């Protein structure tokens, strides 16, 4: 039990904007009305935020592990975590090791993360790694939009069957929701092709188009009553002029809930690398008029990183552009996976446009409940650099200084220089915690109200915003003080949130022959056992049928 007194509280979920308020944490690790005779933290002069929630990150699983193995040069230069009594050893850097990931997230005041891309085939591995990420609570999303068993049902017009298949996969992967990456495009990658237009049939199918997959999968997510809507990585990522594809995708989502992942990578104008420019104004306009859609920025920060995505064809293109290392994982008939280490340089015009576009989206989308802080870690930059983005959002002057360092040719390609908006602390709290928690359907997160999980972070108020957000004074997770005065005090295990959607009982028998026909794995070995999940918290879903 803890009492936090005198802090300036920013709790957007309850409309509290900087009022001085006492918070009480009960025995069960949730907020309560009052407590007696317990530790009191005097937070006078400090700022209290709900614990951060990362709506889109990649921290565990086969792809991440491959990225770690592919970048030994980063391990030599990065921050090392030396083992102590309470802490395991590890490495930070572009693709931090499991334990270090937990320490780094908690050290920045984040208490919940959403691992946004898990193929079912490597779900078991992912859950094992997540169990080794301490402190933070976790959710995972299952890659579905290129799953050939599901696509076959969609092609045949068997909507119900497709829905049952998705529900079956979600439970088999012990997952929290559906991720769609380059719908149809990754399936086409297996033919050496991609899918850039929403209306063209995809390779290997006679009439199925990316547009149909998008709409059907969004409908399935709605019908299954998933707490988090379809989490969509649109087609044609990263390409100049892809704004038309993105807007077309959004039209296919009319009437549905959806979360558009790392929208920065989908908001470019122009028609070649030379003419590429930011088209965030158009995209932001769409978000401003469509409150059913949320997004995360996928902002880019200059520096070294490693890009990891299920979007195999894009990664092959990126490898061809950079001539650097390239990893491609075969994930059978479920999805793809590519890994390319990358360096974003301010002197590179394309990178400069990307850097500006991420910030523009966060500033042009008016409602902070719709656009969330993310770098699509590690693709646009490492998650432990979020405080740098917050500084760029909160300080227009600092932003101007950074813009001045970009090449002159950037003029006319970006709108960032014309934007004066500065985020308030209330908006930052919305965008890094309350907003993503609500979008994920995690109602007990990002909320300092009575009954919610006592995940909160206390900052010493400082003028240097980047420093303030990277060095919280206290971090409390589930009622335990995990960070105090810059030190890790406790490293409790986090929980994992799962959904259990209902599906027709005959789905098992429907899947078995298909499975035995095309998978390299035994059907009975495939679903992840519930016992494998550390501290599962299962949400049983109803059905519309």
């Amino acid at each position, binding site marked *: 039990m803890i009492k936090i007194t005198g802090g300036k509280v920013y709790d957007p979920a309850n409309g509290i904007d900087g009022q001085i308020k006492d918070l009480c944490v009960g025995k069960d690790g949730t907020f309560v009305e009052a407590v007696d005779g317990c530790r009191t933290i005097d937070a006078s002069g400090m700022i209290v935020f709900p614990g951060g929630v990362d709506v889109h990150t990649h921290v565990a699983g086969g792809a991440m592990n491959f990225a770690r193995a*592919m*970048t*030994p*040069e*980063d391990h*030599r230069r990065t921050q090392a975590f030396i083992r102590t009594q309470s802490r395991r050893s590890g490495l930070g850097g572009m693709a931090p090791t499991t334990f270090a990931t937990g320490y780094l997230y908690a050290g920045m005041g984040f208490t919940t993360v959403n691992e946004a891309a898990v193929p079912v085939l490597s779900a078991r591995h992912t859950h094992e790694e997540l169990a080794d990420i301490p402190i933070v609570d976790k959710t995972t999303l299952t890659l579905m939009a290129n799953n050939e068993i599901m696509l076959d049902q969609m092609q045949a017009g068997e909507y119900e069957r497709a829905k049952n298949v998705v529900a079956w996969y979600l439970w088999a992967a012990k997952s929290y929701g559906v991720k769609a990456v380059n719908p149809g495009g990754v399936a086409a990658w297996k033919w050496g092709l991609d899918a850039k237009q929403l209306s063209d049939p995809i390779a290997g199918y006679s009439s199925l188009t990316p547009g149909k997959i998008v709409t059907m999968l969004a409908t399935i997510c709605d019908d299954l009553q998933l707490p988090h809507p379809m989490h969509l990585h649109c087609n044609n990522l990263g390409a100049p002029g892809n704004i038309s594809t993105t807007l077309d995708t959004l039209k296919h989502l009319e009437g549905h809930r959806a979360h558009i992942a790392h929208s920065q990578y989908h908001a470019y104008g122009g028609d070649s690398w030379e003419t590429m420019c930011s088209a965030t104004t158009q995209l932001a306009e769409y978000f401003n008029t469509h409150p059913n859609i949320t997004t995360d920025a996928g902002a880019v920060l200059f520096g070294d990183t490693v890009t990891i995505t299920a979007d195999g064809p894009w990664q092959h293109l990126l490898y061809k552009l950079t001539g*650097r290392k390239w990893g491609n994982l075969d994930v059978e008939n479920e999805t793809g996976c590519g890994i390319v280490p990358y360096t974003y340089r301010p002197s590179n015009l394309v990178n400069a446009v990307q850097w500006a576009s991420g910030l523009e989206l966060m500033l042009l989308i008016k409602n902070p409940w719709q656009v969330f802080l993310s770098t699509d870690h590690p693709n646009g930059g490492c998650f432990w650099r979020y405080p740098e983005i917050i500084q760029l959002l909160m300080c227009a002057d600092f932003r101007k200084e950074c813009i001045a360092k970009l090449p002159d040719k950037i003029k006319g390609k970006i709108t960032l220089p014309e934007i004066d908006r500065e985020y308030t602390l209330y908006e930052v709290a919305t965008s890094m915690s309350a907003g993503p928690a609500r979008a994920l359907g995690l109602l007990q997160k990002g909320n300092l109200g009575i009954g919610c999980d006592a995940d909160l972070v206390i900052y010493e108020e400082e003028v240097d915003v980047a420093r303030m957000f990277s060095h919280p004074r206290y971090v409390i997770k589930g009622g335990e003080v995990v960070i105090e005065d810059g030190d890790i005090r406790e490293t409790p295990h986090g929980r994992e949130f799962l959904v259990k959607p209902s599906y027709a009982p005959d789905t098992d028998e429907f899947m078995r022959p298909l499975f035995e026909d095309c998978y390299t794995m035994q059907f009975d070995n495939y679903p992840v056992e519930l016992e494998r999940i550390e501290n599962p918290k299962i949400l049983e879903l109803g059905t519309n049928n």
Partner: protein
Amino acid sequence: MTITLHLKQPPAVPLESEVLSPDVLSELSNSEIRALIIYHGKRQVPLEEFFDVNGERSDQLVIHGDLNKVRWIGRGMSKGTITVHGKVGMHLGAYMKGGRIEVHGDASDWIGAEMKNGFIHVHGNAGGQIGAAYRGSLAGMKNGTIIVDGSAGLEVGMRMRRGTIVLGGIARDFTGLQMKGGTVILQSGAEIRTGAWMNRGTIISLKPLQMMPTFAYANDFNPTFVNVYARQLKQIGINLPFARSEGTYQRYAGDLSVPGKGEILVWQPA
């Protein structure tokens, strides 16, 4: 004034001693030097457990003994000199930024790996990965000169970006693997797959080489830059022929499988 170190007895397991660098020792007293920590395997021990130390406060180091298992000597050094009498272990002068290292004896693998500048001269034979990039890194040595009088091992100059490597003896396989720039001079030729995956840079061989099929013969000529290099190398006692009257260089372009813009020049005496 120099600092002289004598190895008391060869270590049982590798001795990681990157403190043996002028940058670390130049301001230290004799007792401070003796107390410096080195790693004997995973065990931390003071320097004096393995070395007799004479002298202090100098950026000229002289090290004696069978240093075959003593690693990382001169790591990241930027000034001064190190003279080794005896065999020396892996990673000699890795990441060095300046200064000179001279070895009167044989050296092991990874000498001058990822060095930025400086000069290394090994009078005996050396191991592999001379001036190379460590695993995963994009670039090996970025400048400086490495001279080995004897033979060398595998992957000499792997991914090097700039600088010069001169080998007196024969080099083993994959010399200039994935080279990105710089020059490797082979006075006695090399074994197989020389220049594999090379992108840019120059390999000069004074002996015939077994060329990979992905290198294309271009022409015979006497490039002017060899003339310039020869004059520079003459100062350190290396003879690089360039005069038309003595012969010509056959130029091979490659590695075309990358495709790369590197070149291999093979000397044809007249």
